[in-house]
């Protein structure tokens, strides 16, 4: 296969001829990386001392913990999405989904229940579905529902709320509701121009083992990097914002929902772990904690960045605020009825 080929016709500066020339002008990133690593190892004494302030240590611990905790789930999701991308033929999705988008949306939304991944994995999978010819409205419903309603996440929710089994039902219902309404809204009002079709490494399109590993590498580098960003945001919040502030908001039901929905966006916790964080926010009413669980897997800082990278800025700027508003509304509605 031809390495210099492009998928979306974008300029290919790496095209065979000028690779050597570019190497001359720019330093090899590989070399820079090795040099940085060696100098960090050589200077580790001073670096350790600089990082020994308690606030900095707490930041580092939470950062490391979030990355370590989410990484196995991310790797698992990425393996699965690579298998789907490479080994499941496009015709399968055409046969599996109803022809009419209005019906395909709820089917795809419910199908999210079988993807045992977190939101880090569902973005690449949804991108793969769009490339496989699934109607965008259905792929978006899947994108929103998969991280929230799969068995791993629902089990984690049940474990985190042993005395509130209705929390699991409420989370399932509210998340499925939001994803279907968002899918239908895209079908009704969405414009194809807002969605920039995601491009992939050429060899990830080829099929076979090489394509599988190329897809894994691509997704690990993307999702993993944004996981690091999310972990930094979460650690910063945890290290800087005193719990007193949160407890002040917990007393007022409206402020509680607003604060926890905002917190879900800022913290960017993986959906497999967010139930435990929600369970620990003991001062807050259950509806507010439901909003935390519904908003978090659908839209947060890390997801917004990932959606921008995968579907384009024009898409993310419209999709993210709509998702946030709808997720908060659905949580309040379902929370009022069920909790």
């Amino acid at each position, binding site marked *: 296969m031809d*390495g*210099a080929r*492009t*998928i979306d016709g*974008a*300029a*290919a*500066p790496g*095209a065979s001829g000028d*690779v050597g020339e570019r190497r001359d002008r720019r330093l*090899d*990133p*590989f070399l820079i*990386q090795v040099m*940085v690593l060696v100098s*960090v*190892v050589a200077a*580790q004494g001073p*670096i350790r001392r600089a*990082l020994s302030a*308690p606030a900095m*240590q*707490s930041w*580092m*611990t*939470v*950062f*490391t*913990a*979030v990355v*370590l*905790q989410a*990484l*196995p789930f*991310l*790797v698992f999701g990425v393996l699965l999405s690579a298998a789907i991308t490479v080994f499941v033929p496009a015709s399968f999705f055409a046969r599996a989904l109803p022809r009419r988008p209005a019906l395909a949306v709820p089917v795809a939304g419910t199908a999210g229940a079988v993807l045992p991944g977190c939101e880090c994995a569902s973005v690449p999978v949804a991108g793969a579905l769009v490339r496989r010819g699934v109607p965008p409205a259905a792929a978006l419903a899947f994108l929103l529902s998969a991280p929230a309603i799969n068995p791993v996440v629902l089990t984690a929710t049940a474990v985190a709320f042993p005395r509130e089994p209705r929390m699991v039902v409420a989370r399932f219902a509210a998340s499925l509701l939001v994803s279907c309404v968002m899918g239908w809204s895209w079908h009704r009002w969405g414009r194809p121009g807002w969605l920039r079709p*995601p491009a992939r490494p050429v*060899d990830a399109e080829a099929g076979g*083992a*090489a394509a599988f*590993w*190329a897809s*894994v*590498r*691509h997704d690990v*580098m993307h999702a*993993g990097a944004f996981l*690091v*960003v999310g*972990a930094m945001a979460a*650690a910063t919040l*945890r290290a800087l914002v*005193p*719990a007193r502030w949160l407890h002040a908001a917990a007393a007022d039901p409206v402020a509680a929902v607003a604060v926890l929905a905002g917190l879900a966006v800022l913290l960017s916790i993986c959906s497999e*772990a967010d139930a*435990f964080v929600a369970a*620990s926010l*003991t001062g807050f009413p259950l509806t507010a904690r439901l909003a935390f669980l519904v908003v978090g897997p659908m839209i947060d800082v890390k997801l917004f960045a990932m959606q*921008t*990278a995968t579907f384009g800025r024009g898409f993310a700027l419209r999709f993210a605020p709509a998702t946030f508003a709808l997720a908060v509304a659905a949580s309040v509605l379902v929370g009022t009825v069920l909790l």
Partner: protein
Amino acid sequence: MNRHAQALVMFLLGVAVLHAGYTPLYARYVKSGLRPLLLAAGAVLIVTALATVWTSRRGRPVHEGHEAHGHGHGGPRIGWLLTLPFLALLLVAPPSLGAYSADRTGTALAPPPGFTALPASGPLRLGLVDYAGRAVYDHGRLLAGRSITITGFISLEDGAAYLTRMVLNCCAADAQPVKVGLSGTLPPVLRSDTWLEVTGSYVAEQAKDPVNGAPIPYLNVSQARPVPTPKDPYES
């Protein structure tokens, strides 16, 4: 970021995760149940890195530009961030959460589902959370008159000394402290984050955590000795 650089980043991250999983290091950050998953994830990362090098060695040119989708040249520059967890784990290896986090968070003592029977006589060695739960919600029914030993780290707030243990659900991001107040014979100098094994007796005295108003039970200390950080610094 070319493919070799991506392979290197993934390899280093995989090594760091395997290292954390093999050694007791992981216990500072995540629950022990995650250990097999950590080892598997580290192995997959290393295999992916090797597969990347392998496929590009088999005659495929290391081309960069075509992988750009909104990231400029080569793979995503943001991919470099994956070096940070590697540096954090292998070079810094930050300690488990201590007094700094505990001071900023209210004690998270919750009513335990039930109270197991205790040995009828002799000195008792209890988990700190177990002691706090029995002292507050069982009113020390089985504790009175016994010699009790608990282990935790010192956290100092507004002059009061607490023996504290962080409680973990999943990873250190959701850790919350449980605090026990210390009265009686204390070492003359108490420093935050020192791990102590204290022996004493139950007292009915209680305080309210200034952060969230939750109850903090007390232990009347007769003896305290410094101990190294336990292998699993958290309780669940």
